[in-house]
């Protein structure tokens, strides 16, 4: 029985290197394609700067696409740790968005044929980007508290639908074009100052649950929403992430810290695999809260109340 285990998300976890190092989180790299040419997504900005990436993406979104790690890449990653006698806790992007979960399952079958004692447990996070990344951070915290792979797996499975998002996207037409948002068709032509506030539904898709005019109203709504949906906030490690809105994302982080004094608020950036689908202009906070309701009905009602509707 493995006593230690590796936390191994796919490359859509969007955790900056310093977070991965601090929390001892590995990952399985994936690829993204630009004009038919493949590029490795190694969750660094070494091969292209973040500013250049999002500027180019904004100009020609149709040239970009992303792909999860394939079965062989999963097998290679699993084998690396299984050979060392380590258990592997795998987290994948939502199965409703990608084949990553299925590929990981197939890779696990293949590896377990070769290594019958291998312990590989795979979670369909039902999330993407740093929301999944936060699950990984929380898994790491539980691991450091001495919890077993099975316990951490069970806890994450039981609570993965309790992770919320609060923040906004400033480039909705982009997101609408890429189809990674519910009800996208009506968002063309929106004023750029208007903030579309979203939360994640049970499948991991961002759904706009309200709109605020301007940054001031946006920050207020985002923080009020956290207050009404988060649980045990003072003991939480939360995460703020952004594609290319650093100034506003850092302001969001600062306001969260001032108002709620959570245990910690991490800051990370969105890498190409998720960035291609989320687009520029995104800043948000992920945190643990009450279970997400079907159709986000309760969440919409909360936001309507905050916005005075």
């Amino acid at each position, binding site marked *: 029985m493995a006593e230690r285990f590796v936390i191994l998300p796919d490359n859509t976890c969007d955790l900056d290197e310093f977070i991965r190092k601090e929390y001892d989180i590995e990952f399985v790299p994936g690829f993204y394609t630009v004009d038919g040419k493949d590029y490795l997504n190694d969750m660094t900005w070494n091969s292209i700067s973040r500013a250049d990436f999002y500027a180019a993406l904004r100009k020609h979104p149709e040239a970009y696409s992303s792909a999860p790690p394939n079965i062989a890449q999963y097998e290679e990653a699993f084998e690396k740790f299984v050979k060392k006698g380590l258990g592997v806790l795998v987290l994948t992007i939502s199965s409703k968005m990608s084949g990553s979960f299925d590929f990981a399952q197939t890779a696990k079958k293949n590896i377990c044929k070769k290594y019958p004692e291998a312990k590989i447990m795979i979670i369909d996070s039902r999330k993407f980007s740093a929301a999944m990344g936060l699950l990984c951070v929380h898994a790491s915290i539980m691991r450091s508290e001495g919890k077993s792979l099975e316990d951490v797996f069970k806890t994450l499975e039981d609570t993965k639908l309790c992770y919320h998002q609060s923040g906004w996207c400033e480039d909705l037409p982009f997101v609408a074009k890429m189809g990674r948002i*519910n*009800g996208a*068709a*009506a968002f*063309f*032509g*929106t*004023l*750029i*100052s*208007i903030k579309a506030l979203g939360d994640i539904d049970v499948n991991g898709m961002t*759904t*706009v*649950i*309200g*709109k605020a*005019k*301007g*940054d*001031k*109203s946006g920050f207020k709504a985002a923080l009020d929403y956290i207050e009404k949906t988060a649980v045990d906030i003072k003991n939480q490690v939360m995460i703020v992430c952004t594609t290319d809105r650093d100034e506003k994302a850092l302001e969001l982080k600062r306001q969260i810290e001032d108002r709620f004094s959570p245990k910690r608020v991490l800051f990370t950036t969105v890498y190409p695999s998720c960035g291609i689908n989320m687009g520029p202009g995104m800043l948000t906070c992920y945190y643990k809260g009450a279970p997400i309701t079907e159709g986000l009905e309760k969440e*919409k009602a909360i936001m309507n109340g905050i916005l005075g*509707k």
Partner: protein
Amino acid sequence: MATQKIDGSLFEQMMRNGLGNIILNEKTVNDMNVFPVPDGDTGTNMRLTLAKGIQKAESTAVLSEYVTKLSNGMLLGARGNSGVILSQIFSGISHELEGLDEMSTSDFLRALVCGYKTAYAAVVNPVEGTVLTVAREGTEYVRDLFDPDTSFETILEYYLQGMKRSLKNTPKLLPVLMQAGVEDSGALGFIIIIEGMYKYLCGEVVNSNTRMESNEGSSVVDLDAFTSESSFEFGYCMEFLLRLMKVKTDVEGFDLVGFTDVLKTLGESVVCVQDGTVVKVHIHVFKPSDVINFAQKYGEFLTFKLENMCLQHNENISVSAKKKSHVDLAVVAVGNGYGMKNTLTGFDYVTYIDGGNTMNTSTEEFIEAVKEIDADRIVLMPNNKNIVKSALQAVKILNDNRVDVVETSDPVQCFYALSMDMPSDSIEDRISALKDSCKDVTPLRVFKAVRSCRIDDVDCKEGMYVCSVGSKLVSSDADFVSALKKGIKSIDGYEDKEMCFAFTGKNFNMQEQVERLFDEEFSDYDLQMIPGGQELVDLIVGIA
């Protein structure tokens, strides 16, 4: 001659003379428009409204039949505030004359009373000092002097005397008129129409080259609608005035019937009217050169108009819904300029109507747009306070409980409300939110004054930049940016606002200066300037 009875035929000629008179004086009425913006359109709106009524009314000797169709046509064609009130006056007149083959002077007096009362009832907050007052006081003057033996000529003379006296008094009743030094333009327009009717009875026919004026609107034609690959299926609409020339033909013995018969072999929808030595021609034709060559055998052109009817056709169908498929909620929005069109049609449930420079959409245009839409609910957003009444009139005529009006008085309100729309909400919540959202936006306009005046305690000289907030002038300055800055600072609580978005006019070239102003004075605002392309106003601004 003393006229004691008027039937449908005579009434029609009187109305046509009234139309001719408003056409002749259209500019005078437009110029009396209070605001110094070159969008004075009272005369135009009244002319278009009346012309539509006359166009729709079929000639008949039966008075009630004619007046009913005239009134219905005016209701549909009503444009702007003044056009709608005019249509309501005639609606009241038509109601009182129901069932009559001809009217007596007593019938006419009762009809005038019904006319002004119907108009008053149609206005939510009737304002004295406008056409309502003038029509009422003119009628009361007639009533005081009325005698059943009095002829129509005398009745109309009394009516005009009473109304003109009332018109002189309108500045005392409406401060904005006093400040501008003008009388009410809608009232003047109505007097001019009645005067034309009176003139006909006195044997004075208004120059008929103006009586047949087409009732085309002021909407912008999209030239790209007819390309080098288009199918030329509708031909040209041609209208001209031809002066018969003695060197070319027997002017005294000119055979209009024979002339018309030949034109009918060259085209369709032929109408020819002769007034003295001038012949007015209207014809639809594929080969205009045939008509030109034929006409020049008899004289020379005084005026000439030729339009590709494929463009007119496409202009009409641009009002049609972009999508024929069903939507929960559809919006009919009015705008002007390519930028506004692109912006508003960016929402795929919006049907766009180009209202022309003054965004003056008629009741009929709203109705036609609604008919093209397949939706559970439809909302009209007029974007100009002068056509809110046209929109409300459309709802009344449609008698369709799916249709509602969001009383937007400016396109920035419409754009903001649409941007804040949440398609995932219920339809009724969305409509409610549209109504609430548009109130969050304070509209501002900055434009050049076309005449000097003092309005709302603001002195402006011709050529200065004027800023209005809502319908009130708040600042004027020789410098555009200064006028804008003063305008924004005049808004209550402007320091707490978060965003400013603006449609820039066709010839706007002060983007950098405006951006600098916001960097220096309103740095908390998110500023977004959208090329609007509108003709008359340099900047249409929304502050929220």
